């Protein structure tokens, strides 16, 4: 479904991604692991055309999408739950969600309403607060809003950048339950995480990114078994 081949990306003169290749197949949850500043967010931005790769190709559903404008890529069915949520703080919850459905203005009226219902069902808290400004929500609520907003686009591929960041453990579990549920409803997911154990527990496959390079990739089960995670995060031998 999504395929990156030998992608290089630079910020100014600085190389951030070095020959990154990865693939996400229909129906999968793929997990991209790595520490701070390893290039995970840049991978997301490169897929979405926010930054342009300097070499390599990005394909989505068989078409080359690198070089397309971000909004064009978004309309093809990719949507993002960004790092640090980045909801529109000065817009209400309802408005944030309707921004999520921006690409679907020509969809039948009932369909969007249906999607609102879907989000309300997933996140009843948001329904209660639909007229509140995004900026007044708590961190967890904002994360829900960011996910809900991305879902409103009915993406075929959902990119999630550190959805667990800054959330209480109980919320982290909840978020990952929801990710699994979304995937169960037919959305392919690429999730970037630092919280590797939890992410791998729901993923099909995983890639590990270090200093802009893919250093490991394998099925989630094997990655968990290799104890890479325990080494990286808890310093165990």
């Amino acid at each position, binding site marked *: 479904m999504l395929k990156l081949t030998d992608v290089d990306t630079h910020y100014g003169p600085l190389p951030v991604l070095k020959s990154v290749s990865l693939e996400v197949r229909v129906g999968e949850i793929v997990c991209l692991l790595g520490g701070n500043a390893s290039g995970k967010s840049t991978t997301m931005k490169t897929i979405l055309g*926010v930054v342009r790769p300097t070499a390599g190709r990005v394909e989505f559903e068989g078409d080359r999408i690198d070089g397309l*404008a971000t909004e064009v890529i978004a*309309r093809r069915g990719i949507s*993002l739950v960004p790092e640090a949520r980045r909801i529109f703080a*000065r*817009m209400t919850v309802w408005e944030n969600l309707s*921004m999520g459905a*921006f*690409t679907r203005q020509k969809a039948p009226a009932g369909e969007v309403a249906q999607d609102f219902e879907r989000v309300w069902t997933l996140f009843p808290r948001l329904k209660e607060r639909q007229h509140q400004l995004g900026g007044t929500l708590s961190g967890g609520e904002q994360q829900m809003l960011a996910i809900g907003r991305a879902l409103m686009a009915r993406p075929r591929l959902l990119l999630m950048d550190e959805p667990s960041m800054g959330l209480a453990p109980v919320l982290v579990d909840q978020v990952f339950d929801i990710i699994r549920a979304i995937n169960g409803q037919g959305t392919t997911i690429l999730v970037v995480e630092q919280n590797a154990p939890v992410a791998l527990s729901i993923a099909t496959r995983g890639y590990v990114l270090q200093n802009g390079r893919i250093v490991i990739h394998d099925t989630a089960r094997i990655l968990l078994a290799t104890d890479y995670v325990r080494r990286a995060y808890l310093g165990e031998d």
Partner: protein
Amino acid sequence: MADVLAILPQQLVFGLALGTVYGLVALGYTMVYGILFMINFAHGEIFMIGAYVGWWVLALLLQAQAGALHPAWVLPLMLLPAMLFTGALGVGLERFAYRPLYLRGATRLGPLISAIGASIFLQNAVMLTQGARMKVYMTSLLFPRDWRIQIAGASVSALVIVMVAVAGLMMWGLHLLVQRTTLGRSIRAVAEDREMAAIMGVNVRRVIALTFFMGSALGGAGGVLVGLYYTQIDFFMGYSAGLKAFTAAVLGGIGNIRGAMLGGLILGLVESLAVTFMNPAYKDVVAFVLLILVLVIRPTGLLGESVAARAKV
């Protein structure tokens, strides 16, 4: 003192009329600033050109059939072409004088100087094509002098009522558009987080261009109304009106639409009150001192949010 109190209602009416004008022009500054963090110094000239377009429409109508002009249909006929023309001009400026700069990541001051260049250019282009001599709006043919009413000791002309009403309607319309429509939401989304807006599928460049269109069209409408109210227009009028409107926008909190209207009204009222109670020579000093005081106490203007932190040189 009794004299002063007697004229106070009248002064408030004058201040309100002036403030409406400032507010309408301030909207253009604020909208562009809100989305690009750029002071569009050419906005004063856009306002001036709107006044000229309105004048030409009126002049052509007068030529076609002197008399029997009723504001109910003439006013929209003046406003529409003025708004379309200035709107298009704003889009053109954005496309050719500003976009090349912000796309190439210039410091924020590059577009500022480009805008100043545009301002000088437009001013002189109008002078050279329309002549340096001022033009007179035949307002009295549209709004006879005796169309006026007395309210609480103040005499209010029909023109002022129409002007405040039209400006108010436009602001209300803009408010609804920005708050209630998909376009408005995408404008706000782009203003808040350009990258996320694009990820939502918003065509950011088009939204910026549309914002320029709307801000400039409102400036153009302001030009027509001011032309009618002031009855004289010249190629230089954008300078001082622009400066005042910009001040109003900042006073209210630049980037904030309601702030622009509030700032305009306050500035208009302050000016008319300053001349009532003080030496009129210091009218503008009072206005600027007020501005400085407001900003020293509230560094982001009356209704401003702390976008200033992002606004680095």
